[in-house]
């Protein structure tokens, strides 16, 4: 079972209290972007076997969006953090490095 701690209200709950919002830290391809870049922004998503960054909403709770870093294989959660950021915070990256030595962001 996936257990998340909402960084907004502090509640630790299991996944039925939350709603998954897909891959985190997408960058919108703005006006002037190529068709390929915009298509990738709209449709191309990571589907890693391992460390993944996602958006979640505390739907049956405080209602806020936040980010989570977790392992898709084991459901281990490395950290949850604010939605108001474009990158994972250093302490979450440190937690991942500790648990998954050798993992690099974007690396396969």
């Amino acid at each position, binding site marked *: 079972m996936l257990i998340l701690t909402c960084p907004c209200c*502090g509640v630790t*709950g299991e996944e*039925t209290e939350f709603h998954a919002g897909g891959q985190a830290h997408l960058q919108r391809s703005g006006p002037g972007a190529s068709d390929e870049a915009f298509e990738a922004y709209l449709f191309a998503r990571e589907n890693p076997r391992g460390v993944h960054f996602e958006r979640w909403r505390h739907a*049956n709770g*405080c209602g806020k969006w936040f980010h989570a870093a977790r392992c898709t294989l084991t459901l281990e959660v490395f950290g949850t953090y604010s939605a108001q950021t474009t990158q994972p915070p250093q302490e979450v990256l440190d937690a991942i490095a500790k648990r998954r030595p050798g993992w690099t962001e974007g690396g396969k």
Partner: protein
Amino acid sequence: MSDATSALNGAAYHGYVEVQEAGLRGMITLRGDLASVDIKNVATGLGGVDFPAQGHCNWVEDRGIAWMSPDEVLVMVPHSEVPAALETARNVLSGQHHLAVDVSDARAVFVLRGAGLREVLAKLAPVDMSPEAFPAGHFRRTRLAQVPAAFWLGEDDSAQVICFRSVAQYVFDILSHAARPGGEVGLYR
């Protein structure tokens, strides 16, 4: 003028835990910067209790304040006082970014009584209801079976459950079913 009526008009079920719809309760959603002195003053002035810590509800008799989210509290007052309370909130907070709205008739409230109420809630909510994990005064927004709900426990083997009015009958039914004699599990004893 028509009389105000709560969702289930005080319906009750007498199981191994008592389930009773609480009747009319004034509830005001107050949103804004919870660090703002004015927001706090409005909440405590109307709610008649100290401002609650994150994840808590302070409640005395028929007044209280529940912490809903980092920018929202639920202020509870007697039902008849809501119009005056809203007037007060609007006067104090005019010019400040805030929301104060009457949700009394958009919610239903249930009171549970009895020693087994922790396990009745645990049957329905994905929440650790042990006394260590969920002491009296903690406030939890979660779900009961398939609908959103919130609850807190008093010191006296009582609990209060808030849900949307549109699912009041559903929540009454599942609470009653969970409290049916013969369904005792014996958790948290």
